[in-house]
């Protein structure tokens, strides 16, 4: 069936380096993509989203890239900080996210001092 998945379950980076978390999706009808950060014991926290009519969107220290040709989504975090340690989920939705989202399994980002 159609699903959202992540390439790497764990990513370890040095503090201050840039992090790139990747995600593949297969539902061609999805038009809304979103990245969430989840810390232990907490609910998912919105980071950034992008609609299918865009291929790049930037926020504070984060950039999301969307490649619809190969159905690939990535999250770039600049100058990674200890507070960025968490599990990151990509999610996809149809109808601009007005209905339920489909989440991937998550990537655990570990920051090395």
């Amino acid at each position, binding site marked *: 069936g159609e699903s959202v998945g992540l390439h790497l379950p764990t990513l370890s980076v040095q503090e201050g380096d840039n992090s790139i978390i990747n995600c593949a999706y297969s539902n061609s009808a999805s038009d809304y993509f979103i990245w969430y950060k989840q810390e232990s*014991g*907490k*609910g998912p926290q*919105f980071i950034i989203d992008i609609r299918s009519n865009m291929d790049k969107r930037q926020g504070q220290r984060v950039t999301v890239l969307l490649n619809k040709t190969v159905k690939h989504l990535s999250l770039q975090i600049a100058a990674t900080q200890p507070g960025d340690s968490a599990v990151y*989920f990509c999610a996809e939705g149809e109808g601009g*996210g*007005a209905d*339920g989202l489909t989440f991937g399994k*998550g990537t655990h980002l570990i920051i090395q001092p």
Partner: protein
Amino acid sequence: GAGVSQSPRYKVAKRGQDVALRCDPISGHVSLFWYQQALGQGPEFLTYFQNEAQLDKSGLPSDRFFAERPEGSVSTLKIQRTQQEDSAVYLCASSSGLAGGQETQYFGPGTRLLVL
């Protein structure tokens, strides 16, 4: 507070017991969602409300799961005759639901359910 709140934060139930989980969405948010998150997994969609109308309940795993939002604000997820496989974190999210607007879903902290 301004965010989504959920109660209780933790619930331990004996197998066969009924439980009720509450969600208070962000004030004014039209859309409300319930998700189930198993340990080490991403959240999985359960059901969705727009105001008091339940528009999608395709993710509810069995007829033991029931959700309601009678006045279009607070929602309750009820699980009857709980089973051990129901142990998970139950997340609630809300979005503004404005037509043509950004539909970002904002999540609450979740209720961690453990069925013994």
